[in-house]
């Protein structure tokens, strides 16, 4: 054994990952959003599910989301180490080997899809498989580095969980879960473009063609406002469907008024003004966007939970 091999062995041992490092590969914060929206989709469905089946289904949907997160980190390891926001992730930080992330992602993908199909139904399993494929292949491998529409189309991956939750309960499709899908789908662009505005050169340095990079920051501000207007119409309109009701309508009107105000403020600003206060309005809009989605789905959940007591919905 040479000095070089001894040295190499020491380095590989030091890079040995702990359990928490592997867990971080699954993007726990994204998983929490997936768990919540899938649960709302499941509980808003007109057919009730045994609690054990509901629990297992949500668990396997979360594992599937985590698997796609690991595959995304494996594929994006090269650009993650350039961007400030992502350089602390397990692979660029040197805590987890890129190949390990790939194997974990593939193994958990297979496990989650098969187990969801067995726990709930085949359609739910198929939809989870499609969602993982969409996020890992369509978004991460193809769209993210090739078009400024990356997060617009890629947003569909994050929008599928409530549809899968609904399919777990009903075994079929209808209009309502697609309204929840549309809510997340239309919310994603303004959410990420606000982030891109205040992350400044991050995407530029990494060569990711975000709208801020390809079309400029003025166009990005215009698009944030445009998408927010369409989102507001959709979000308030959903109040008058079977998953809506007075609670949802109240929440939607208030939240969309605040969100529109935020988008309007971003639209009115330019780079000089934003620089002066370190993108305070853009950062506030980004934080509001997280609360916006959480409270819309919270309101749908409230309508569903209160409906058996005659308090939820319009009836």
């Amino acid at each position: 054994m040479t000095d070089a091999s001894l040295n190499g062995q020491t380095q590989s041992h030091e890079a040995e990952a702990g359990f928490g490092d592997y867990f971080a590969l699954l993007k726990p914060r994204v998983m929490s959003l997936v768990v919540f929206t899938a649960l709302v989709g499941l509980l808003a469905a007109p057919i009730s599910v045994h609690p054990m089946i509901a629990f297992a289904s949500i668990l396997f949907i979360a594992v599937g989301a985590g698997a796609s997160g690991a595959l995304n980190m494996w594929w994006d390891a090269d650009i993650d180490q350039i961007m400030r926001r992502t350089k602390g992730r397990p692979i660029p930080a040197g805590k987890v080997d890129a190949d390990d992330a790939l194997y974990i992602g593939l193994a958990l993908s297979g496990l989650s899809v098969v187990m969801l199909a067995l726990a709930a139904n085949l359609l739910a399993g198929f939809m989870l498989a499609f969602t993982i494929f969409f996020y890992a292949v369509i978004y991460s491998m193809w769209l993210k580095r090739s078009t400024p529409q990356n997060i617009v189309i890629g947003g569909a991956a994050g929008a599928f969980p409530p549809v899968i939750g609904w399919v777990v309960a009903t075994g079929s499709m209808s209009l309502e879960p697609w309204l929840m899908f549309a809510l997340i789908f239309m919310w994603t662009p303004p959410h990420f473009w606000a982030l891109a505005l205040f992350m400044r050169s991050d995407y530029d340095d990494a060569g990711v063609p975000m709208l801020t990079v390809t079309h400029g920051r003025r166009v990005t501000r215009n698009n944030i406002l445009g998408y927010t207007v369409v989102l507001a119409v959709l979000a308030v309109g959903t109040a008058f469907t079977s998953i809506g009701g007075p609670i949802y309508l109240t929440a939607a009107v208030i939240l969309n008024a605040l969100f529109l105000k935020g988008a309007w403020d971003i639209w009115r600003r330019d780079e000089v003004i934003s620089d002066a206060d370190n993108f305070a309005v853009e950062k506030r809009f980004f934080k509001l966007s997280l609360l916006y989605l959480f409270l819309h789905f919270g309101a749908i959940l409230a309508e569903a939970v209160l409906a058996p007591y005659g308090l939820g919905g319009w009836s």
Partner: protein
Amino acid sequence: MSLKVEHELHKRRFSRNVGVGLTLVFLIAVVFGLTVVKVTGGDFQAALQGVQQ
């Protein structure tokens, strides 16, 4: 001074082993719970009596 010095690496490896172990136990519990619900339709006692008869 102890001859057996525990390296930080061993702590990390131990945490990983415990984590994987607990995850597997949890998975077994979930699969068992699912099996009971699927086989019995949620009514374990009735199913048990059916088997005994």
